């Protein structure tokens, strides 16, 4: 498994060098490149335009509410139009989720997704929460994230990759957490029914959505 991650790192390094080279050669023949792109009718603007967007007030007030209540325990990653994202430690996630449900009036989870970060040896679990009851929150999504340690040789269910389940707070996460368990090997403590959901019953490999699980020919 460790060799796999090393390989990954190597691949990344080479691609970075490549991109540097390309940018250098671009600056060498900028006029030519511009002509080429104009002929093809392509847009020459950078991939991601750096436009500072104004921070919306309503979302800011929600984020302020939660950060004033929990202080250091929670870190608000960004506040954008209709989207708030906050990261918390896994010990505090149940309290934070209860606060979000009771005080901020988010009432259901839309999705629970995991993201694997082998470089920092962590798996991120993100709950996207929405609201049906509150008229003002109709377009809002609250992304509540937490990070769990990741082991190179996973043993789903009995290793340290575990976090408290939010099933008692948001009932709708039940099947999403089961999916996250089989795809990332994150065990949700307190979940009543932590079984496989989508994968075949005789699946004996590592959880497939981890980055060190390579698919055929890639």
């Amino acid at each position, binding site marked *: 498994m460790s060799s796999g991650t090393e390989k990954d790192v190597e691949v990344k390094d080479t691609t970075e060098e490549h991109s540097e080279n390309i940018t250098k050669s671009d600056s060498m023949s900028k006029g030519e490149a511009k002509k080429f792109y104009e002929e093809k009718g392509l847009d020459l603007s950078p991939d991601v335009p750096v436009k500072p967007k104004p921070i919306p007030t309503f979302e800011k007030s929600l984020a302020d509410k939660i950060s004033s209540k929990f202080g250091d325990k929670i870190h608000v990653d960004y506040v954008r139009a209709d989207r708030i994202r906050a990261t918390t430690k896994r010990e505090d996630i149940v309290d934070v989720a209860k606060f979000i449900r009771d005080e901020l009036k988010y009432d259901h989870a839309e999705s629970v997704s995991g993201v694997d970060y082998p470089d920092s040896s962590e798996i991120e679990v993100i709950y996207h929460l929405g609201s049906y009851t509150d008229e003002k929150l109709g377009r809002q999504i609250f992304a509540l994230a937490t990070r769990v340690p990741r082991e190179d040789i996973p043993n789903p269910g009995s290793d340290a990759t575990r976090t408290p389940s939010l099933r008692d707070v948001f009932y709708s996460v039940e099947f999403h957490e089961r999916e996250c368990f089989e795809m990332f090997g994150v065990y949700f403590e307190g979940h009543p029914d932590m079984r496989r959901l989508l994968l075949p019953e005789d699946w004996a490999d590592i959880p497939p959505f981890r980055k060190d699980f390579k698919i*055929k020919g890639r």
Partner: protein
Amino acid sequence: MLKELLNQDTAPHATNVLVGKLGDVLIRAVGKPFDMAINWGRIYSLWPVHLETACCSVEFGAASSPRYDVERFGIIEAFGSLRQCDLIVVMGTITRKMAPRLRMVYDQMPDPKYVIAMGACAITGGLYFDSYNVLPGIDGILPVDVYVPGCPPRPETLIQGCMLLQEKIKRTKAK
């Protein structure tokens, strides 16, 4: 063969075995002219099993809709009980979870039985050639009679595949 039946020592004791063997003898006896008659009966009453395996089932449903109407070619729309079916149309991707079930369904069908592989995924894995949970084609688990390419195949293609199967049955020897 007939000698075998008449001999006291080798004659089967159970009645159903006896009837089966007599049937074999009869088919041998009547031979070729009846092959045609039997096959003619088979090709216009193909009953497909209702086993949806992936998204091609949408186009299979469309094939029995009023515009395409496969029934006019003697292929009746998908039927519930597999014990009375003689055709299995594998509609698309076979995942590792579905593969044992597909083989179980095939094994339970009575002879003679035919297989149509519908869609690119059933033939080679198609778009999902590099997925971890998809079989690269069903040839490994079922003997396929007709391949119907497409992703998904249009209902016309499916109808052509069925007609090819009928052509194939017409030319084979009746068992």
